[in-house]
Structures are given as structure tokens and as C-alpha cells.
């Protein structure tokens, strides 16, 4: 189907280094899928394999149902927005945007019309005669997007497109990219190492680690049902506490330090595991109770809309984000941690 991307056991080796273990994935047309992961996890390699900038060591790559494994980048119906934008410094903005159309042999007048339309789509009408160096970072970024979309690619690839922008501009530009993608109904593959950015723009997220897929799903799936400690920690902040599962099933019985707790969550196997506690889901109380964990405040930071605490407990250091209080705790105070068993997740380590 037009706009779909499919990997069938694709591997990539650079000499002895395995950049991608056998990887299979399916991307539905019209969706924005993010490849997320720490640096060196293989996400950029995956993107470059789709683009044809790297060739697969093994396996098959299909775009729009057609086998493109041995097709060079020139002939693939994909275009790419680069981290550095890669605008041609010796061409004007309009020449940059029209470049792909021109090298395809389109008549000059039509190239110009389409390139101008492309610039309009990204809100840069009238900037065509400038040189890339005469634009701000955000504007250059939008030129790069316009240059990629005027070709009406089956798949739009974005390689960390926001990493050269400052924090405030990033939020604005990522919304724009998402809007353009949805308006044009483009399939987009987006690479980032910023989980917040990934959550904000994606239909689906593919989290990668050590050259393979760690977990795949919608942003909410990943946040609510992390499959591993790595995902739990990577998607949103998480406190990971070592526990022992003694009875699995509908209700799970666990031992945290020497306390026995019953949680209304499913778990597969008994044995060593980790309990995921989101910083927002922890309440700090002044009075002890049997299911509350005593803790000492090591560090408190007042950020206006929240107060962030670092606590020392017997189970290790714990990070808590609390709503602002009239009377916040101070460093050295002893507090008691309380949490809603419903919101606890268990992952195997």
C-alpha cells in the first residue's frame, strides 16, 4: 500500500559492529511513527536504511509494497529532513526548495510555482530569494521541511529535526510538523532521543535499545504498560524499586523490603522484579502507617508549579514530584511515602 514501510529481518553491520540486529517492523500509511532511543541504539541507522543512504546487510525493505532493498536513495519515494538541515548554502531558499523538482526535470515555471506553494505551507512566503544563511534557525528548519514535502514523498523522514533549536521554539515547530503531516496525510518516520518530543508528536513510538526494538506502541501504551525497567525509566520518569513477587495472578503479592503488599495488577511470574513508581503518583505524609515507607528528605527544589524532592529510603533513592504546598518539607525532614496500588506497575529487570 502507498506510504507503508515494511522491514523483514533487516540487519546492518559495519565491519564487525552490528548496528541493527534482525529487525522487522510495519508502518501504517498516514501515521507518524517515532524511533526513540539513546544514542547508538540503531534508530538513525534504521532511518537511513529507509532512505537508502545505507544498504541492508540482510533482509528486505519494502516501501509502498515495493521491494526497494537494492534501490539507491535517488530512486526511492522518500525525502528526509536532516538534523543539520543540510540546506545548500550556495542556493537561495527557493532554489533549495525546488531542487528535488528541478533534478527530476520538471519545467522551470512549475518548479517555481510548487516551490513557492511549499514555502507557503511552512509559513515562509516571500522568503524565497534569501540565502539560507540569512534565515534564523527556526526558519531554516522550515525550509528543510518544505524542501522535503514539495516532492510529495510516500514517506517523510525526519532525523532529530529539532535538536538545533532552542527549547521554546522546539515545542512550536514540533506542533507545526505534526499539523503538516496530518494535513497532507503523510507517512512520517521521526527519529529523536527526546521522549517528551516523541510522546508529543507520535501516533506510535518504537523504542530501540542495543540495535533492536525494546517496545512498540502508542505513547500511552508505553507510559502505562512498560514492558521493561528500561522502558519505564526512559518513557517518563520512574522510580524503580527492587521487589520479590511471591504470588502472581489476578492480584499480585509482593515483598518490598520486609513489607508484604497486595497489588491489583497482573504479573506473569514469581521472583525478582522491579516496581515502577511514577514521581507524580507518590504522596508524602507526615505520619507513619504500616504500608507507608519511611524516608528522609535529601534535597528539595521549589519550582513554582511543583516541588521536587529527592528522598533517601531503605529501598534506595526516590524522586518525587509533589504539588505546591503551603508548608513544604525541608531537607532533613522525615516523611512517609504513600502510593495508590492501582498505579503501580511491575516489570522484570
Amino acid at each position, binding site marked *: 500500500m502507498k506510504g507503508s514501510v515494511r522491514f523483514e529481518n533487516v540487519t546492518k553491520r559495519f565491519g564487525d559492529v552490528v548496528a541493527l540486529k534482525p529487525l522487522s517492523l510495519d508502518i501504517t500509511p498516514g501515521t507518524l511513527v517515532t524511533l526513540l532511543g539513546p544514542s547508538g541504539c540503531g534508530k538513525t541507522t534504521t532511518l537511513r536504511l529507509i532512505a537508502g543512504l545505507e544498504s541492508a546487510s540482510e533482509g528486505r525493505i519494502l516501501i509502498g509494497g515495493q521491494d526497494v532493498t537494492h534501490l*539507491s536513495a535517488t530512486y526511492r519515494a522518500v525525502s528526509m529532513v536532516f538534523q543539520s538541515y543540510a540546506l*545548500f548554502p550556495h542556493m537561495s531558499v527557493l532554489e533549495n526548495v525546488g531542487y528535488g523538482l528541478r533534478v527530476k526535470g520538471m519545467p522551470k515555471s512549475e518548479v517555481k510555482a510548487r516551490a513557492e506553494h511549499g514555502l507557503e505551507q511552512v509559513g515562509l512566503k516571500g522568503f524565497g530569494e534569501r*540565502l539560507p544563511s540569512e534565515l534564523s534557525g527556526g526558519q531554516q528548519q522550515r525550509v528543510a521541511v518544505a524542501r522535503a514535502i514539495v516532492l510529495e514523498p510516500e514517506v517523510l523522514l525526519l532525523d532529530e529535526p529539532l535538536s538545533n533549536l532552542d527549547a521554546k521554539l522546539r515545542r512550536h515547530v514540533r506542533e507545526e510538523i505534526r499539523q503538516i503531516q496530518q494535513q497532507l496525510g503523510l507517512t512520517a518516520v521521526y527519529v529523536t532521543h527526546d521522549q517528551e518530543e516523541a510522546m508529543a508528536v507520535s501516533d506510535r513510538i518504537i523504542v530501540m535499545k542495543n540495535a533492536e526494538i525494546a517496545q512498540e506502541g502508542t505513547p500511552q501504551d508505553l507510559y502505562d504498560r512498560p514492558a521493561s525497567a528500561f522502558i519505564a525509566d526512559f518513557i517518563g520518569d520512574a522510580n524503580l524499586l527492587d521487589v520479590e513477587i511471591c504470588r502472581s495472578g489476578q492480584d499480585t503479592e509482593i515483598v518490598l523490603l520486609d513489607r508484604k503488599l497486595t497489588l491489583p495488577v497482573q504479573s506473569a511470574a514469581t521472583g525478582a522484579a522491579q516496581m515502577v513508581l511514577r514521581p507524580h503518583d507518590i504522596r508524602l505524609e507526615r505520619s507513619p502507617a504500616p504500608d507507608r515507607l519511611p524516608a528522609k528528605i535529601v534535597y528539595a527544589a521549589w519550582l513554582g508549579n511543583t516541588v521536587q524532592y529527592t528522598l533517601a529510603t531503605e529501598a534506595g533513592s526516590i524522586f518525587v514530584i509533589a504539588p505546591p504546598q503551603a508548608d513544604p518539607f525541608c531537607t532533613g525532614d522525615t516523611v512517609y511515602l504513600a502510593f495508590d496500588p492501582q498505579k503501580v506497575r511491575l516489570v522484570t529487570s
Partner: protein
Amino acid sequence: MQRTAKLWLLIGLAAYAVLPWYMVPGGFWSFGWLQAWSADARPALVWALGGHAWLLAPVIGLLGAALALATTRGLALARALVVSGALGLLLMAGQGLAILGNRARFEALDGLTQPGMGAGALLVAAALLFILTTGISGLGRGRGDVFITGMVGAIVALVGVFVFYPMSFILIRAFELRGGAGLGVSEFLPRFLAPDIWSIACLLGTGYCGAAMNSLLLGLATATGTTIMGLAFALIFTRTAFPAKRFLRVLTILPIITPPFVIGLVLILLFGRSGTITEFFSDAFGWEKTRWLYGFWGVWLAQMLSFTPIAFLVLIGVVEGVNPSVEEASQTLDANRWQTFRFVSLPLMRPGLANAFLLGFIESLADFGNPLVLGGNFNVLSTEIYFAIVGTVADPAKAAILSLTLLSMTLGAFLAQRTWLGKKNYATVTGKGDSGQHAGLNPALRWACYALALPWALFTMVLYALIMFGSFVKLWGYDHTLTLEHYRRAFGIVVRNGVHLTGSAWDSFLTTLTIAAIAAPLTAAVGLATAYLLVRQKFAGKDAFEFSTMLSFAIPGTVIGVAYVMAFNFPPIELTGTGLILIIVFIFRNMPVGVRGGIAAMSQLDRSLDEASVTLGASSATTLRRVILPLMGPAILAALTYSFVRAITSVSAVIFLVSARYNMATSFIVGRVENGEFGIAIAYAAVLIVTMLLAILALQLLIGRRKLRRADRLQAT
């Protein structure tokens, strides 16, 4: 893949059926072959059907490719193309090497003859090669890019034919047994180990040293001297407030555009037995006139003058490359300027110093002009090779053995430089702007640098002034009346019934300029294309590819000249006596510098620029033309300038390859020097220096202005 393969198939078949297969008298472009089409200039098809049946061999590859294109698709087609292309090339090379000019290599083929390959053969070979590379790209190599695999194939083929093929003749000649009894070491070893090569008698004070020992000692002395001198100049440039730096810079360029012999010549006129300075000291102090200049010290002095700029150019990059922050850090840690230099800066420059040393060593070994003029009884390998070929007793086997000796020394230095230094680069130039300042030199060191470099600079200046002066006097040393006689004899123009170039130098001068002008863009193209492949593309065997393209840098000109004479004097590739062989020798001798410059420039262009172009649907060829070349102005300029200048000043390889019809300026000058016509020689050299300066300026204006605009544009990004 299919379209490209079909296109080359058609070209190959057309060339096979229509173009003259063998070399035609008068050259292809004279189109004289159109008349002789049925005689000498027959195409391969006609030859093959009329007696030269072996010429059916190459067409097998073409027919195989045609069959594959008609019957298969996809991977099977790609494999078939690879096989038929390779088979065609092998068969073609096989028939060419088996049936040589007027004899056959094997007894079974006795009586068969054929002339050297010509235009038809060239195109058929190209067609077969590109059918092969197209097939390789179809197998998914080189990211499936026909253009890239084709380019790699073309460069490999060119380097193979014009570097490795001729060099193999040296090897064969060195090991050949007398009377065509095959190959062996029984004659090679005693000749190779002979005392006239390796004797160390001069060190023991009992006679003359062998040529290899002389070369080695001279190389070490020159390398040491030029490295020290280059460092002094580099330090003055970067670490002092010396006022006339610009002027010094010009002095460092001058020796590069000076034809060989000229420095030696001026040294003779100054320090020779009847030289100006010798006379002066003899008159004033009664010193004895000696011939000290004709020997080790004279050659060493001339080489110091010629090669110090090279050491300087290497070292200034390294000295500038030391991160100023490191020096500042040292000073904040309470080290004084001397300690900072001694313990921080100097160790960081060590790889650069070693690099300059090895380059000086290689240049000194390869140098031909200076030892020829000043050597006297001091024999070095490069001149011995020359005399073994052109001397009274021509001894090609001796030339081959000496070449092999010289080659193993330069290759050894080249390999040492690459393996030992390749990975060790302490130069700390990062993309980030380092705002720090280099620490100044402490006074003692500064004065030491001045004391070393400034008299040297003055000496160089005086020499060049004398070149100009000497070209205007009647007979230097004897009759100093000013005259234009030399210029008139060399470059006289008579205007009578039109313009007549009556000067004796015009012929070689115009030939030199034409050949240099043709060779320069080709050299730049081959060099930059190679650099593009090395920096931007990934393919199997890239390391070997890089090594083989850089190899010709380590092959001394004399050796390559001898190799060309041995290899291209008879079919299958018969080029001696043509202008083409001069162009080719320049391309492959000067290519490594184009490659290096290209690599440096291309490394500064973000790779994502070409990736962006390619993902936008541009082919590699379009990307190269529209994106990379426009951004590479300065590198192109440098490559063009360098190859143009080198083509004009080169002598060592050329001296074997010139012919009456295609004489070059440098070999013309050698002839004048040998005849003792110093005035004309110097006048000619002065004209060449001015011509090269003008050419460099013109190139700067032509390409340089675009470069400035680009630079402005780039700066703001």
C-alpha cells in the same frame, strides 16, 4: 542498470565495427583515418574477418552482455554483465599482451603482428569496463549506484594501466636473465649488492660511496635541514610579531614555481670555481678557488633551497593546529614561555615534524635536477638511473635495478609515514571556535628562529634577484654589460609578412604550456573524483584503493619515466613520442596532491548536504555537479594551480619521454645548460617563473572570486 548497460553495449559495438582499432598515424583527431579506413585504419571487425582472427576475442564480452540483456533481468542479469565484462577485458588484454608489435610472446603465435591499440580499442575497453561496473552496481554494491561503481572502476583501471602496468616492467627487467632465459635472482643479486650501489667508502675515507648510500646520506641531511628551517619559519609566522610575514610568504612560494636546475645554476654562478663570490674571496683574501660546490654540499644547499618551503607548508599547518587553549592552560599552571614550548607545544608538533622530515627525505631522494647540475662525482640513484638509460652504454637492466632500489627507499619512507603517523594526529582543530591566543616564543628561541630564517630568506631573495639580473647580462662572471640578447635568441619575434616566432625556445615553450594546460584540468578532475570516492562513498577494498592512488606520490619521477619508456614503447599500448604520454605522466604523477587537497576540502563539507541531495531524487552525478563542485572552489583552484605548475617545472620523468616534436621547457633548459649556454637557460627560466605567476593570478581571478562570494555566504551559517 539496463539502460546504462545497453548504452555502453551500443558504444562498444559501434566502436568495434566502425572506429580504427589500432593507432593511426597523425592521431585520431586528424581524421586522416577516414581515408585510410580500408587500410591501416580498419576497425576491429574488418581486421578480425581479414586475418587478425584474435580480434574476435574482445567482442565475446560484448556479445555475452547483449545476450544477457536480451534474456535475463535483475540479479541474474547483473551477474551475467559482470562475467561478460570481465571476460571481454581479460580476452582483450590477453590478445594485446600475447601478440606484440612485431613479434609474438609465445612461439606458437610466431609470425603474428599487430600495432598498438587505438581509439577503437580504447572505446571497446571502456564499454567492457562500464558493462562490468554496471553489473557490479546491479549486485547492490556501492549502494546500487551505477555512477559510483563506474567511477571507481574507471579510476582503478587508469591507475592499473598507467601506474601498476609500467611499474611491473621495472620489476621484470630487474629480474630478467640474459638472453631471454626467463626470470631469476642469479643476475639480480650480485648487481643489486654491488659496491657501486652500497659502498660506504666515503665514510671510511677510502674513496667514493655507492649511489644508494649517497642518496641516503643526502636524504637524511636534507630532511633534517629542511625540517629545522621549516620549523623556524613556521614559528616566526605563528608565534612572533615579525612585521614582514607577507613578504616571507611570497619567498616560500617562489621555489615551488622555479624550474629545476635554476637554483643549481645560480649557485654555480655564485659559488662555482669562477663564481662571483668565489672570485671575490679569492681576490680579497687570497682564498683558494675550490670545487666544493660540485658534490654533496652543493646538492645539499640546492635541495635546502628547493624543499624548505615544503617543510614550511607542512609545519605551519601543524604549528597553527596546536590548540591555543592548551598553551594558555600551561601558562596558567605557571609554566613560563620556554617551558610551555618545550613541554607542551613541541611534543604536540612531533607528528608534524616527523611528517615534514619524511617528505623532505622522499623529495630529496627523488630530486633529479639539482644532482644532475651540481653532483659532479657525487652519484645519487636518480641521476645514475638517467645515465644508465641515456649514457654511452645503455643498460636498462641496471636502470631497473637502481629504480627498484630507489623505489624501495621512497616506498619505505612513505609507508613509515602512513603507518606510523597516519593515526597519530595531535593537531587539535575542532569545529568550535577556539578563542585563545598562541603563546609567544621566549626571547632566546625567537632570536634563534630569526637568526636561522632571516639570513636564509635574504639568501633566497638574492638568488632570485640574480636570476633576473643574470638573464640580462652578456656572460655572467666575465662580461656584465646589459643585453637583451638571451631573450632575443630564445623568444625572438619577427614581424615580416605576418608574425614569425624565430626564437629557439618558442617551440618547447608553447608545447609546455599546451600540455600543462591540458593536463591540469584532467589531473584536478581525476584527483578530486578520487577524493570524492574516498571521502563520500563506501565500497569494498577502499583502503587498497586509497593506497594505490597515493602510491604514485612515492614513485620518484625518474623511476616512473624509465617505467613508461619500458612499458609504452611497443604495443599493445604504444605512446612514446606522442604528446599524450606527457599528459598522462603528469596526470598520474600529480594526482596524489589533487586527492589530498580534495579530501581536505570535502571533509569540511557536511556529508548531509549530499545525502539531502540524493534523497531529494538527484543522482550522484547531479549531486556532484550541483552541490559539491560549487562548494569546492578553493580546492579546485589549488589542484589546478598545482598540477599546472608541476607540469611546467617537472623534469625527472619528462626527460625520458620528450621527443623532437614534443619537447618540454625543462628538457630544453637541460640541453642549454649542457651546452654551457647559461644565459639563455636563465632567461628562459625567468620567463617561465613570470608565466607561472601570471597563470596563478589568472586562475585566482577566475575561480577565486566565486570562492569569496561563497565564503561570505557560508560564514553566516
